[in-house]
């Protein structure tokens, strides 16, 4: 937990009101972002993202499974987040369960779209091998290693980077199998299909402190927030999900204003992330 004196609290609030935050940033600027891909060799794709002192790792594992009866033409994607106790002693034991569940749900809402799979940032229909019989199940695991605020944005960025690092093995279907039984498949260990990640949205969390809102809040700033809204936006500028977490109520007009600000910020963030991911991939290959 962050323990701040009254003076420190006023300092943070006053700084935000004057558009000059404790670390010298403006209200709508991010801390430096570093991306490293391929950090977990056992996974199909992985990435480590560091925003300031916040550090998260995301990994993608693909396993062959059976599509659900309701959606025979779609693969399954699940997101699970863990908060390591290295990040904060309070996460020890079961202490981080609520935060993990909260983050997992928010990410699922932001990246996977509705229950029907409509509007998902990840194209689930590309995961099908044989319709109704075999598909790829993607397990996305996130781990918070070090926490200094803005975990949701960092996790969203890490998942985006991990997905673009993901190679799904090519599958050959053995010919001659009858249509009703489970077909035999051969998984190639040399050829991989790259995942299309251009549609994966980024998440921008706007934290309201006093009358103003800021992006990329540190944990000190988060302790002073009155409410926070997380908006996931894709490259086309469409909103893929909105989550309001905690705090007091907001005026509806403020939320609409926040959405338009988030849209502006997201363009910069997407460009920054894409160039970071591209350079990380280039470094990973060399």
């Amino acid at each position: 937990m962050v323990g701040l004196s009254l003076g420190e609290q006023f300092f943070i609030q006053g700084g935000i009101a004057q558009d000059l935050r404790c670390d010298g940033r403006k209200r709508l600027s991010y801390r430096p972002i570093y991306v490293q891909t391929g950090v977990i060799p056992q996974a199909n794709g992985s990435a480590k993202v560091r925003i300031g002192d916040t550090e998260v790792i995301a990994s993608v594992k693909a396993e062959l499974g059976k599509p659900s009866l309701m959606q025979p033409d779609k693969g399954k994607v699940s997101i699970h987040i863990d908060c390591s106790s290295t990040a904060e002693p309070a996460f020890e034991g079961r202490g981080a369960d609520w935060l993990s569940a909260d983050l997992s749900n928010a990410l699922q809402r932001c990246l996977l779209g509705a229950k029907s799979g409509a509007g998902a940032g990840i194209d689930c229909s590309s995961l099908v091998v044989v319709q109704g019989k075999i598909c790829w199940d993607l397990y996305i695991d996130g781990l918070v290693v070090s926490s200094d605020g803005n975990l949701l944005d960092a996790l969203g960025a890490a998942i985006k980077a991990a997905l673009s690092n993901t190679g799904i093995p090519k599958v050959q279907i053995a010919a001659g199998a009858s249509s009703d039984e489970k077909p035999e498949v051969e998984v190639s260990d040399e050829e991989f299909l790259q995942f299309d990640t251009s549609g994966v949205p980024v998440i921008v969390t706007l934290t309201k402190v006093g009358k103003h809102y800021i992006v990329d809040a540190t944990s000190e700033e988060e302790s002073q927030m009155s409410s926070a809204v997380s908006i996931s936006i894709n490259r086309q500028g469409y909103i893929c999900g909105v989550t309001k977490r905690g705090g007091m109520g907001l005026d509806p007009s403020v939320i609409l204003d926040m959405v338009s600000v988030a849209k502006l910020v997201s363009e910069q963030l997407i460009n920054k992330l894409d160039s970071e991911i591209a350079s990380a991939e280039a470094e990973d290959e060399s």
Partner: protein
Amino acid sequence: MEYVNPEGLRVDGRRPMEMRQIRAEIGAVSKADGSAIFEMGNTKVIAAVYGPREVQNRSQQMSDQALVRCEYSMANFSTGDRMRKPKGDRRSTEISLVIRQTMEACILTHLMPRSQIDIYVQVLQADGGTRSACINAATLALADAGIPMRDLVTSCSAGYLNSTPLLDLNYVEDSAGGPDVTVGILPKLDKVTLLQMDSKLPVDILENVMQLATEGCKAIANYIREILLENTKQLEYRRGS
């Protein structure tokens, strides 16, 4: 299965007395008082130390020494097959206890009465020898946090397969069913603080295997000392003195 081929090479191409490549880095978690990453081949762990600080649970406070606590956890993606394990299963509780006891033996707890030191270790990748890697990472993190210690503790494992003593087993060799001896030593004081072995082994061979593991520990201790020295030099440089 053949774990040592006629040319004397192991499954991953190492010689029987060869260790995997080790790499360490100090200061991975900036919010912690001390932290470190330790890698042995594909095994990668991260350790963070918080403290000495006020005891959280008053009933555990001790008036003559510090309370040392430890939590070991494995990431979902750390193993080859993905699995979901809740925190605090039997295996992690056991390893937490082992690490706690090993570190407690080297921390000068009597200098910090009525305080608490938390050690958190997180396995990012598991490929055999996580226990040793965790202890080595914890040592580095404790040193980074500036906690007074009698000596560095270092740990290394050794096994015995195909009638050959093998240093630093990886996952394939570890799951071969042969003995796995994990040794933790205080290298300067030349004392053993941790010794664990499963499976069975003739007494005269145990001596050899233990000797081998001890040599491994000493090599790791040298490396850790180098890393600490390098880190201290950097700190000194940054201070500008």
